[in-house]
């Protein structure tokens, strides 16, 4: 334990908040990356299998950079692996949307597209922030995210404006997942603190841009936007749906069974 690396008092508190904030970004990428990796060998076509694996690897790559940074800010000597494999569900800070099961291809696409559109705004905001390390990670990640969004919005329109069955499935997926979207732009105390410190963008400023993008895509896909959901989920505060535990059990079992195992 390198406790001495953590500054005491107000600075130390801000640094711990900073670490928690980076952890939220990291966990959303990690959990979504793990979900997409579940498609490997099961996607509807060979080409889609590779596409989903590529996107998954991009997200896990983002998670590695962010976890490493969160661990350094925390100053407890935890590296990316300790954070990814040795934390339990209540310690994860990802958006609850990211952990939702793959379901059918429609659910996977809608979940992914909603988060892609969110990451586009968040990363663009982080690029302009005062934290140069986070800005550099965001600058790398946003190039990947632009492609992810191209991929997911393409499928959204193709299936939404496709056959009667594909349209119906997309509409159902949108209805199922919409209730997790208020969390994306409902700031809590930590979000507000980070944005006041100039580290993170203000969620209230980003929300209309995300909304406009998502509404336009839904229109192109000939789908109907579900009614607004007033209640935000709190995945970023560690309150998760039951699905995260199963995901972590699969992701972590090897490190938990054989601690320190490596290729």
């Amino acid at each position, binding site marked *: 334990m390198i406790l001495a690396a953590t500054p005491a008092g107000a600075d130390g508190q801000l640094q711990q908040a900073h670490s928690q904030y980076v952890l939220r970004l990291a966990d959303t990428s990690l959990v979504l990356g793990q979900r997409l990796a579940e498609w490997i060998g099961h996607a*509807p*076509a*060979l*080409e889609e299998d*590779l*596409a989903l694996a*590529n996107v998954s690897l991009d997200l896990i790559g983002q998670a590695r950079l962010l976890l490493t940074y969160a661990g350094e800010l925390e100053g407890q000597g935890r590296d990316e692996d300790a954070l990814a494999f040795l934390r339990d569900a209540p310690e994860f800070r990802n958006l609850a949307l990211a952990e939702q099961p793959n379901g059918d291809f429609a659910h996977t696409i809608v979940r992914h597209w909603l988060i892609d559109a969110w990451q586009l705004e968040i990363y663009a905001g982080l690029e302009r922030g005062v934290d140069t390390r986070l800005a550099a990670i965001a600058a790398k990640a946003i190039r990947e995210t632009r*492609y992810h969004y*191209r*991929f997911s919005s*393409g499928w959204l329109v*193709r299936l939404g404006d*496709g*056959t009667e069955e594909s349209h119906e499935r997309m509409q159902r997926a949108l209805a199922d997942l919409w209730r997790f979207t208020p969390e994306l732009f409902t700031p809590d105390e930590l979000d507000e603190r980070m944005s006041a410190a100039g580290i993170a963008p203000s969620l209230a400023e980003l929300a209309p841009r995300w909304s406009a993008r998502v509404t336009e895509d839904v229109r192109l896909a000939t789908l109907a936007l579900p009614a607004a959901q007033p209640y935000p989920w709190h995945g970023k505060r560690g309150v998760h749906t039951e699905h995260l535990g199963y995901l972590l059990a699969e992701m972590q079992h090897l490190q938990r069974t054989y601690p320190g195992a490596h290729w």
Partner: protein
Amino acid sequence: MTEADWPLFEVFIRSRSGLEHKHVGSLHAADARMAIEHARDVYTRRQEGVSMWVVRSADIIASDPEEADSLFEPARDKVYRHPTFYAIPDEVKNL
């Protein structure tokens, strides 16, 4: 619609600026946009390219292998079409 119904596309990749696009393989996709995305995901994962073309395989007009004799055989005995056929005089320095 299954992948079996998706049309086949041929993929051409330019590996560096200034070089030509080269045929690298084929893939299935439902439309042109998906074909570009698939080409990116299947054929450029290791930085193989800076530009891609995709063409519907059905749009390619190919020569008939049955006609190979009449198309290509006549060139066989015209060795004078190769530059190596001609002896270069010693006096010519810059050829």
